């Protein structure tokens, strides 16, 4: 895979596993997201969309966290396809 296929988390399909590359969020929210496990090189799985498509729930370090597009559109990573999540 070439490395130009970064997508933002909100573009992920349900079931996609995304390896985070960078966050363009700033300030307290950035800190908060980092604390919750949205850190570069972490793998995140999009698990569920709400009826209107926003927010979207992601599984990150063994917990489900829902993010609004406001934040998820500023978190970028590459899709590392593995539908059935293998344990790490």
């Amino acid at each position: 895979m070439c490395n130009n296929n970064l997508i933002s988390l909100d573009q992920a399909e349900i079931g996609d596993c995304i390896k985070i590359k960078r966050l363009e969020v700033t300030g307290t929210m950035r800190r908060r997201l980092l604390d919750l496990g949205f850190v570069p090189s972490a793998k995140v799985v999009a698990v569920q969309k709400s009826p209107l498509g926003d927010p979207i729930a992601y599984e990150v370090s063994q917990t489900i966290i829902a993010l609004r597009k406001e934040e998820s559109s500023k978190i970028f990573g590459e899709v590392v396809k593995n539908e059935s999540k293998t344990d790490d």
Partner: protein
Amino acid sequence: MNQKQTIKIALAGNPNVGKSTLFNTLTGLKQHTGNWPGKTVILAKGSFSYKGKDYTIYDLPGTYSLLSNSTDEEVARDFIVFEKPDITIVVLDATTIERNLNLALQVMEITDQVIICINLIDEAKKKGIIINENVMMDKLGVPVIKISARNKVGINLLLDTIDRMITGNISTTPYQIKYSNEVEEKLKQLIPKMDKIVGDDISPRWLALRLLDGDESILKTYMRRKQMGEGEEKSDGYK
């Protein structure tokens, strides 16, 4: 050492890892524990004795971090920074260690009097999670103890470790995160300045890190507290 004084212990940890359960186990209190986040809004305080020493234990609010500036995190952080517990016990959930270690590392940046308690060890076993506490102890440089607060597993070992840390029989060398060269360079410049202001009161490295993070609140709180305290102390011949 003044043995008569009660020893201050703080319980820190993510929400819902069993801090309050451990608190109750240690103190025998029936402080209500609930299975939802954000339950411990303010500090609960209790006491117990072990091997002739009196302890006061503070149950801090559950937080993922000490940096995001929510009220809960501020309460927890200010307690560790300013009340300076003799020991801070960081309670981790054995089934989600990775997520929990963030807070542990943050606490270890503030103080080196840390014991890490891996709670819910029986739950982890059920899930097939095996934890090698010796490896963790080596890497983290502080005591790591596996417990089940609910089933009272490992509590004696914990009490013993507390006792040995207080009597000075255990010395810790908490793992310190090394930051990028750029940050470390700035730290080198800042730390001596911080050292002059806070001395031994707060870890100069930690305070410098917060300033680099853009957070001046700790330094401000420190100055305010110092001013308030100075009226009573009159430590040297300043006037």
